[in-house]
């Protein structure tokens, strides 16, 4: 089945790669997309998210843009006062002049895929698109078929990275219908540690599309703190897939924040593949206007003694729509697994909507698992209490909404990220200037 949109999107690929292994992945992905097409609402995982508005556009991928106005966009996209190594991608293309990789320690490889693919061919080819990631869905297939650039972060064994790596992906164009295809690879060696931030940012008034895939591999005893901040512009579309493979004793803290995009879909697939591997996941999504924000997570406990703890909160106002689907799979041999999942949603208007579904598939018998989902509105007794203390009704609503979101935000380790998110969250609420006081 080859539809016009599949043909158009696949035609965005560049010349055949001189790396035959990479071309092999591209070709396989190309075939897979040609055969299976893009997801439709008939598929269980895409039941609530209609991607046809992405597919009907004639996006041009990875178009270089003259750097006018880019400095102001980048200064909003960067995290203020955060000391970090940073890699900047503009419309999917690495920009060395805007990046800062001057102070890289030894024993790490950090840079762009397009530049490192030759010098670090062995390690990159060992990991990239392992286990045929492109078979997951049409967007991952498209991403693989178009692989061109993205970030590479490889930390050698026993090395603790000194500063976080901030990957900044901005879209910018005077015209509509540009798209970026981004493929990132993170490898954290045995007993190594790293913090990686991905920020997706774009202007509010252009229609653009981000299709991003990140693969992370954690070796024995490795530690990764990963932040994904989806702050696309309000006319931007975002589809992201994050795959994590964890060996024994490794630990992941993942923070997934979605506050931008007309339609933003984020998938997180974690495989706890070695005994004692553990993953802690915090998510926050906020939608207003007609935003559509969708999070799908799968945590696969494929080894014994693995632990996962997942907490997502959603705030939806106006006519916004939220989707949360969290799946926990415990394999037959994965005894002594502990897995907890919770999702709480706050609806701020009668027209806002959320569909939430936590799922457990348990094939082992000696496990501790729990899951729960709630959908609610602001608590009347709390509102009345605040108002009886002379707090204006709108401010009281904003305060309680902020407090709900803050419960996830305050789990983040970097005060600079906390500040940024607090400002963004408050900025979305009425009377934002007044509730700032409560936060400092």
């Amino acid at each position, binding site marked *: 089945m080859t539809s016009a949109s599949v043909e158009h999107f696949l035609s965005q690929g560049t010349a055949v790669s001189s790396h035959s292994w990479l071309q092999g992945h591209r070709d396989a992905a190309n075939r897979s997309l040609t055969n299976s097409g893009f997801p439709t609402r008939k598929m269980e995982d895409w039941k609530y998210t209609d991607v046809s508005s992405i597919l009907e556009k004639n996006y041009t991928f990875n178009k270089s843009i003259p750097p006018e106005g880019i400095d102001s966009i980048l200064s909003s996209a960067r995290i203020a006062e955060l000391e970090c190594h940073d890699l900047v991608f503009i419309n999917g293309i690495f920009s060395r002049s805007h990046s800062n990789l001057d102070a890289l320690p030894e024993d790490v490889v950090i840079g762009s895929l397009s530049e490192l693919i030759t010098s670090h061919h062995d390690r990159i080819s060992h990991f990239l698109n392992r286990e045929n990631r492109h078979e997951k869905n049409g967007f991952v297939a498209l991403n693989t078929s178009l692989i061109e650039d993205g970030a590479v972060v490889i930390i050698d064994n026993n090395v603790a990275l000194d500063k976080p790596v901030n990957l900044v992906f901005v879209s910018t164009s005077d015209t509509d219908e540009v798209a970026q295809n981004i493929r990132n690879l993170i490898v954290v060696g045995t007993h190594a540690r790293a913090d990686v931030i991905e920020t997706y940012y774009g202007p509010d008034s252009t229609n653009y599309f981000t299709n991003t895939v990140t693969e992370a591999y954690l070796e024995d005893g490795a530690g990764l703190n990963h932040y994904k901040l989806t702050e696309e512009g309000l006319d931007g579309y975002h589809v992201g897939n994050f795959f994590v493979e964890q060996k024994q004793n490794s630990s992941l803290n993942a923070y997934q924040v979605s506050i931008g995009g007309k339609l933003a879909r984020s998938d997180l697939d974690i495989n706890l593949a070695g005994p004692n591997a553990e993953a802690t996941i915090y998510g926050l999504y906020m939608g207003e206007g007609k935003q559509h924000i969708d999070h799908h997570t799968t945590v696969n406990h494929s080894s014994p003694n693995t632990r996962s703890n997942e907490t997502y909160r959603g705030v939806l106002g106006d006519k916004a729509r939220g989707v949360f689907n969290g799946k926990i799979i415990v394999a037959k041999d994965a005894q002594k697994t502990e897995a907890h999942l919770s999702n709480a949603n706050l609806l701020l208007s009668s027209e806002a909507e959320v569909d939430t579904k936590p799922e457990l598939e348990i094939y082992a018998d000696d496990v501790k698992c729990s899951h729960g989902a709630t959908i609610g509105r602001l608590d*009347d*007794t*709390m509102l*009345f*209490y*605040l*108002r*009886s*203390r*002379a*707090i*204006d*009704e709108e*401010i*009281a609503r904003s*305060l*309680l909404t*902020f*407090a*709900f979101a*803050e*419960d996830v935000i305050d789990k983040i380790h970097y005060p600079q990220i906390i500040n940024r998110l607090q400002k963004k969250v408050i900025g979305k609420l009425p009377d934002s200037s*007044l509730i700032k*006081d*409560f936060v400092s």
Partner: protein
Amino acid sequence: MLSIKNLHVKVDNKKILNGLDLEVNAGEVHAIMGPNGSGKSTLANVLAGRDGYEVVDGSVEYKGKDLLALSPEERACEGVFLAFQYPVEIPGVNNVYLLKAGINAIRKHRGQPELDAVEFLSLVKEKMKVVHMKEDLLNRAVNEGFSGGEKKRNEIFQMAVLEPALAILDETDSGLDIDALKIVANGVNNLMNEDRAIVLVTHYQRLLDYIVPHRVHVLSGGRILKSGDKQLALELEKRGYDWVIEEASAA
């Protein structure tokens, strides 16, 4: 200061207050006593402006204004304060910031300049001493994880900082140990002057040993059945409410 006339109130279509009359003048302390479920908290909530209470008849005048026409925050700005029977826990909202925002909203309403951080802090320090409030409670989320007694004390602390003209204390004395009871009484007596009034809802005469009321009222079946001076409280303590109810139905 407060004039309630023939107040009829429904909650969830159920009639709770049935023609309640009450006059409170500035400079007075009134105690309201009455059996469980008689409508005391309903009255307190209606005065503070809680949603869900339908006033089907009657009027409430406060300082010459129609109190029922005001939103809860406007009432607070005008000097009405309710100490809740069950103070609400509000995770994520800081206790002391709530107070700062509250007092500055009230000051703004009165045309006074807002307090800056230093002025506010010295006010808070002063009032903490009055109610023996522990410092670590200040910077916690509002009432979150507070013990029952600490919650009640926090209500009195808020009252002391906000300095309302009309304070309604809904069973603030319930669940307090004897020392805390004295502290609450101390907070109330500290606040009182000839421009202010206090309505105390209580089940126990013992609070009235420390705060001497000008009037004591018996509320039952949604009406004030009997009013008297503090002797009435002593009599109720001895004899219960039945005789008041019988007396009223005989009349």
